[in-house]
Each structure stands twice: as C-alpha cells, then as structure tokens.
C-alpha cells in the first residue's frame, strides 16, 4: 500500500477517523446535538474529500479495494445519501424523547463506512466485510431502542433472515474459492474466461451469492422481509436501508458481474430475468391496495430494484449508465419520500406517520411536504418533469437496446400497475382533513429537515428536465467500470 493508494483511499480513512472521533466525543460528553452535528460535519467532509481522490484514480488499494471513477460516483452517492439521512435523523430524533440517542449516530457512521466500502470492493473479503459492517450496524439501527413496539420485532426478523442470507453468501464465496483458488474479482474473471473445467462450482456459488445479494436488494423471492423491516424501523433508518444499502450492494454486484462474470452464464441470466420480472410484477402487485405508506414504499422499492435489474441484465455501456442514473434518481426520490415520512413523524408518538389516514388533507395542512411528496411519487411513477422519468426512459432504452423483451414487457406492465398506488397516495393527500386532526394544533417539523427536502426536490426537478450534466458526470465516473 503505497502513498498514492493511501491518498486515493483517504476519504474512506477519513470516514473511519470521523467514526472514532464521534465515539470519543460521545465518550467524553453525551450530547445529542453535538453528536449529530459532528456526524453531519464529518460526512460532509468525506463528501468533499471524495472528489479530491479522483486524480489518483484508478488505482488498486491492496488486493481488496480499488478506487476508480465508478467508486467515486457510487461512494459519493452513498455518502451524500448518508448525509441526508443524518440530517433527517437529527430532525427526527430532535423531538423531546427520553433515552440516549448518541449511539444512533455512531451506528449510522459504521453503517455508512461499510456501505461506502462496497463500491470499492474487488475481493470477496472486502465485499463480505463491507456488507456485514453495514448489516450489523443496521441491525442496531433498526431495533434502535425507542418506545416504538415494532422496532424489536423488525430487528429480530432482520437478524435471522440477514444471518441466513449471509450464510448463503459466504458458502457461495467458499465454493467459488474452492473452485478457482482466488477471491479477487479480476482473477476470477481471468480464470473464468480462460475456461474452467468445474464451471458448475462457480455457477452454484454465484447462485448462492445472488441469494445473499438478492436479500439485501429485496428482490423477489428474497423480498419478504422488506415491508416488515421498513415499517418497523424508524423512518430515517428506513430511508437508509432503502437507499444507501441498496446503492452499495448494487454497485458491488454490478462490479462483480462486470469484472468476474462477464455474462453470468445463460442459465443464471435466465434466473436473473425471472427474478427481475417477478420483482417488478410482485412488488407492484403487493403495493396495489396497501394502506400503510411505509409498506407501500417498501413494495415499490422491490419493484424499482426489479426495474434496475433490467439495466443490469442489459449490461454494456448503456446499461451501466442507465443503472447509475436510475440509482441516482432512485436515491433522490426515495430519500425525499422517506424523508417526508420522517418529517411527519416523531419517535415519541409510538409509531411513525405511515397510515394512509395520516396523509388525508396533507395538501391543506402541510402544503410544502405534500407538494414535495406528490412530486416524489410522480418521480417514482416515472412521470416528467422528474428524475424518475429520465431514469425510466434510460432503463427502457437499455432494455430495448439489449433486446430484453420479457423484462421490458414486465417493466411496462409494472409501471402501469405502479401508477395506480402512487396516485392513491396523492388522492389521499387531496382528501379533506379528518375531523380528529383538524382540531389539533398544526404540527411542525424542524426547518432544516424541510430545507433538505427542498434541496432534494430541486435536484429532482433540475436533473429531471436537464439531465445532461448528470449523464456527463456518470460518463466520467461510473461509465469507467467496464472490465
């Protein structure tokens, strides 16, 4: 590990340093504001530091990591999203509430560290470690002790299912290692392409890895935990799971398949197509009549990951670009949507504002949040002038370009079903204010939370109408992932 590699790896090192610093700070003095602000400042610093690492890229940092354009893009997305989640969490936890809140930020930082390392991973060891650092931290965050009953239940579910899926992932890695004798993505790719007598091991291994990854990405049929955990976790944590962990895991599996597996084998491709189609249709169907907004968004995220698989299956430059743009669009939109849910909720209330009735009359009582949520939902539905529209266009383009007939058909069908439930939420917000709530004094959320939502909204509209800069950035960074 030479100086150049060290410099390139600096943003990640910085994140580790920030984590330790915050831990020490908490050790010295427990103060919610201090912990939160130092976390936010630290994440901001990392975000700033990331582009500074660009001149050194691409560079290998030990056999475990690499820093290249794609890492800068995806890690940037992870760090930026984490920053937004941190601010939203500060707003969410800021209310009068008993109990210590400082560990929350520490876990947020370790989770972010694990997630940020995933895009840079080019080795099973780093892949696994990043993933598990993320998972264990999330376990703490999901079950984060609060008066909310569901937290513990959600935590248990994540514990058992996550553990099982990790075991599958590890066993798969072990099979591939047993077969090829290496755990480096690049080496695996070289050996695979050179022709391998025991390809079966690699295929079964990949299938088991896909099980683990499919779980994290909540793809059908590994999706069943998703709504329960999204509902049970505190709203900002839900945003984190929905956005940060998805981006991180998707980026690493994208790299794995590009570097190590080229075309993943015809049979597994068929399996992946099936997973994509099932996710698109299943996710949307599950969301159809859902009356809990967090669950609805959870099912919708299942479908969106299915959409994303279309770009993944399409591959090639266009597929990578489409995936990158779509992930960015998905990040902005989902952060916005869950952020608004968080802005409407307080942990002291016993549950988050996630029932459909909580949204009745929102256009009247909280016009800004309602309007923003409306635009976020339109983006999820893929309507202009939002990023979601461009993103969906990109996906269909990649799918059509690669001639993926069935996945594209499922995408179209899924989108049509999707429109229905997104608009249901819109309709709910347009309903009259329930009598019970109209008497209560108007609730307010911290201003900075709304500012974050406003920034996301601006991004959503700006990159939705003029996506050229974003595409240019993607070409510059994530497009370089090609093996």
């Amino acid at each position, binding site marked *: *590990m030479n100086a150049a590699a060290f410099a390139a790896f600096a943003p990640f090192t910085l994140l580790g340093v920030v984590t330790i610093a915050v831990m020490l700070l908490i050790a010295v003095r427990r103060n919610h504001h201090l912990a939160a602000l130092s976390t936010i400042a630290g994440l901001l610093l990392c975000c700033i530091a990331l582009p500074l690492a660009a001149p050194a890229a691409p560079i290998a940092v030990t056999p475990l990591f690499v820093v290249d354009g794609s890492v800068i893009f995806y890690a940037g997305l992870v760090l930026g999203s984490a920053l937004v989640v941190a601010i939203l969490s500060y707003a969410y936890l800021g209310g009068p509430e008993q109990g210590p809140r400082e560990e929350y930020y520490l876990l947020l930082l370790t989770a972010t560290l694990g997630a940020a390392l995933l895009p840079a991973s080019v080795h099973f060891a780093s892949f696994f470690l990043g993933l598990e650092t993320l998972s264990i931290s999330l376990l703490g965050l999901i079950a984060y002790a609060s008066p909310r009953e569901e937290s513990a239940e959600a935590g248990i579910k994540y514990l058992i299912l996550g553990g099982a899926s990790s075991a599958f992932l590890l066993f798969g890695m072990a099979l591939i290692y047993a077969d090829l004798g290496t755990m480096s993505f690049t080496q695996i790719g070289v050996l695979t392409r050179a022709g391998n007598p025991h390809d079966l091991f690699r295929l079964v291994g990949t299938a088991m890895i896909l099980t683990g990854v499919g779980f994290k990405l909540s793809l059908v049929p590994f999706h069943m935990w998703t709504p329960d955990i999204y509902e049970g976790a505190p709203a900002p944590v839900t945003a984190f799971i929905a956005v940060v962990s998805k981006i991180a895991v998707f980026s690493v599996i994208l790299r794995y398949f590009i570097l190590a597996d080229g075309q993943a084998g015809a049979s597994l491709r068929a399996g992946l197509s099936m997973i994509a189609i099932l996710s698109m249709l299943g996710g949307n169907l599950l969301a159809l009549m859902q009356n809990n907004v967090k669950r609805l968004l959870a099912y919708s995220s299942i479908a969106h990951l299915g959409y994303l698989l279309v770009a993944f299956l399409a591959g090639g430059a266009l597929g990578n670009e489409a995936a990158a743009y779509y992930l960015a669009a998905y990040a902005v939109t989902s952060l916005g949507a869950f952020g608004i849910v968080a802005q409407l909720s307080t942990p002291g209330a016993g549950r988050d504002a996630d029932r459909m009735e909580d949204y009745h009359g929102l256009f009247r009582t909280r016009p800004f949040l309602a309007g923003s949520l409306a635009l976020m939902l339109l983006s999820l539905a893929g309507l202009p002038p939002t990023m979601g529209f461009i993103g969906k266009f990109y996906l269909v383009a990649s799918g059509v370009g690669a001639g993926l007939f069935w996945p594209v058909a499922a995408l179209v069908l899924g989108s049509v079903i999707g429109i229905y439930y997104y608009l249901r939420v819109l309709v709910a917000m347009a309903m009259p204010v329930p009598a019970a709530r109209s008497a209560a004094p108007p609730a307010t959320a911290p201003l900075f939370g709304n500012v974050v939502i406003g920034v996301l909204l601006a991004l959503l509209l700006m990159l939705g109408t003029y996506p050229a800069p974003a595409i240019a950035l993607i070409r510059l960074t994530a497009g370089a992932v090609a093996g």
Partner: protein
Amino acid sequence: MNAMFAIAAGIAVLATVMMITRPSAVHALLYLTVSLLAVAMVFFVLGAPFAAALEVIIYAGAIMVLFVFVVMMLNIGGEAEALENDWLKPAAWIGPSVLALLLGLELGTLAARGGLARSAATVIGPQAVGIALTGPYMLAVEIASFLLLAAVVAAFHLGRAVMRGV
C-alpha cells in the same frame, strides 16, 4: 479416506442433528459445542491448526459462553421444554426438513460431481496466516475492527435498553 477425518465429520454431523432436535436449550448448547469441537478436529486434519485453535477458543469458548449466559439469565425451565416438545411435531418439521434436505442434496451432488482435486497436504500454520493478515488483508483487519465496533455499540445500546426495561 482419512479415518480421523471421517470420525470427526461424523461426530460433527451427528451432534448437529442432536442439537437441532433437543427440546432443552442446555442440551442443545452442549451438542453444539461437541459439533464445534469436532469441526476443530477436521480443521486440524486439513492442516489448518490456527483455524482449529480459533474454532475452539472463540466458537466453542466465547460464543458458547455467551449463549449459556443468556440461557441462564432467561432461566428457561421445564415448562419451556414441554413447549419445545409440543412445537417439534412432525407437521411442524417435515416441510422445512424437506427444504433443507433439498439444499443438502444439491450441494452434496455438487461436491460429489465436482471432481475437484485433493487438497494439498500442507500445513498452513499461524505464521502464514499472520503474514497474510498483515499483508494483503491489512485493511480487512481494520474493517473487521469496525464491524466489531458496530456490534459492540449495538449490543451495548440494546443491552442498556434491556436493563432500563424499555
């Protein structure tokens, strides 16, 4: 076929079967420890003494102690065992067992059909492992420390919540 390996593997599998079928938590824990020790034996046979040692110290030692501690704390008695027996009706276990059997068959077939070469009969001692850990896997160690940090923080936080009775 190495007899040592065969015996150790047989014990491991048998003990595991016992573990997942015992109604008593303490019994199950004991069987699990036996299984782990047998696996340590396998590691030793395979020429991985360092892994064998860790298996004994950390798995059979530390982790099992944690379990025992929790079992003691929860004070699970005969009533719970009766309940466990009740839950272990064939209707409850046939379906899942079939699933597990399927998976086992798939992986077993794979291992049998794979026809991979024999393992190199060399011992990879603690020194070799240590060199690798401080070399290419240096960052892995660092990250593992963060993993442990996260686990400690999470466990601490949740444990405190238990103590506070939230």
